[in-house]
């Protein structure tokens, strides 16, 4: 759960830099929980909401540092262009793969039919 909240926060920070700076940001904790498919009750919403507020406040402190001369960075390591050649390597044995799944049928993973409002027919991409 913390992972999802943190990831969401990372995004909020990226997109809301100026807001963070002004400390005007309000996290819609219920919305964030819904996106992460977390069923939080009122107490939990208040509990995690307060924690996120604290994290955002900390982020605002970081945002206050003048970084205008420092290029934006997407990765902590000074690496770029790490690639592989287009070569096929053997895949896993299917029986072994499907054994890990709670249910299988006809060589496929068997899952319940619907995943709520975000489910749609076909692929998402």
């Amino acid at each position, binding site marked *: 759960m913390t992972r999802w909240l943190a990831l969401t926060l990372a995004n909020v920070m990226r997109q809301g830099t100026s807001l963070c700076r002004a400390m005007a940001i309000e996290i819609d904790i219920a919305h964030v929980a819904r996106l992460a498919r977390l069923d939080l009750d009122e107490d939990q919403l208040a509990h995690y909401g307060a924690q996120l507020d604290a994290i955002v406040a900390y982020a605002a402190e970081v945002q206050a540092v003048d970084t205008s001369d420092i290029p934006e960075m997407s990765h902590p390591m000074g*690496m770029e262009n*790490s*690639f592989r050649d287009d070569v*096929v390597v053997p*895949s896993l044995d299917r029986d072994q793969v499907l054994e890990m799944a709670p249910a299988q049928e*006809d060589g496929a993973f068997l899952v319940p039919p619907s*995943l709520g409002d975000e489910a749609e027919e076909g692929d998402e991409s």
Partner: protein
Amino acid sequence: MTWAPVVGIEVHVELRTLSKMFCGCAVSFGGAPNTNVCPTCLALPGALPVPNRTALDSIVAIGLALNCDINEHSIFHRKNYFYTDLPKNYQISQFDLPIATDGWLEVDTGEGPRRIRIERAHMEEDTGKSTHVGEGGRIHTAEKTLVDFNRAGTPLVEIVSRPDIHSAVEARAYAQELRALVVELGVSDARMEEGSIRFDANVSIRPHGDSELGTKVEIKNMNSFRSLERAVDHEIGRQIGAMEAGKPIVQETRHWDEAGGLTTSMRGKEGSSDYRYFPDPDLVPLRIDEEWIERIRGTLPELPSTRRQRYLGQGLDSHSAGVLASSDADLRSLHDDAVASGADPTASANWITGEITAWMRRTETEPGDLDLDGARLAEMVGMVADGDLSASAAKDVLDGVLSGEGGPREVAEARDLIQVSDRAAVSEIVGSVLADNPEAVARYRDGEHKVVGFLVGQVMRASGGKADPQLANELLRAQLSG
């Protein structure tokens, strides 16, 4: 009020690499389920993605062919959402730093070429495939879902146009041009029926002359160029109908129903912030430098739009240039060889896109199996231009040549189809026809000039069909007025 449609198209192209985008599993269509999967494409804990160099070469080629800027710095993002066929619960994609931006593709619907601007082309991975089992195979009525991850992680390039398309016909032309381009580049099979190229359309309307865009609706599930055109056309009509009835257009995704010929609502479209994009910490940044770009530029083939320009330069009209430019490679080299052998380009193109294509269809012959080279086509085109063959005799000659009877002159002589265009010879026949038809001559001299048609017929008959009818006409009129 008249309405102006505004259409943008998003295209997903599966690349034809040997292995997947971030792992070494084979890319294959139609294999047994879950046979091309590994820890990376199944998202098992600890597995790390490593980008496929060839896939990146391919997107650079696509970007260059679409006249885009190839950005020196780009990165991969995670696009987060939940779905059964997305094992990681995120798709590796690109967000604000894509590989290619700001290009254009030239499209010609027969009314002259127009540039459709390209917003971006970015790299991402495909999802797996879900099969909904139960009544109707639809998710709403399904009892269970089967998931196959063979396709998960296949390299996918998404190409997004600007909303520069103004009609359903133009949407189709854009899609066809783009497909021809990726096929020409050799980066994708681009088979719509197999889903290796997929088109979604964003459609809105606005009052004619307005610059503000209307509410856009995304339509999905078009599996042929025809269905893309129908779907866009239908959606434009639906929106105009709604606006004129005073109903607001809702921003949403709609599903094209091919059998019903209409679009139906799927759900409200999520805002992009709901995907919670953030840089993928598992993947280091990309730096595509000048050297890389120039290496790919050096491998680019002649593209359909460049080729069309070349044909227009040869004097072909816009329609023929377009048809020939997008036709089979064997037919194009037949044309190029014929022109190199001295054929008139317009005549060569007309024969290829007309009679030769019809003959291939009739005999179920593939372009590569045609028994015709550029020199022979040029010879035949030359015989028609010189008056040795009439247009109708040339069709017989072509049939003979394609059936393996020899070169055009050989066939024309063997089938006795050489046209008599020698003035003296035709003049002699004209003289005898006039002598044999005094009544017709008298009528002509009385002002009934249409009788010349009858006399041309007589000359043709007397010559066994071999006289040049135009010459016969000219000589008849000369002798009748003399």
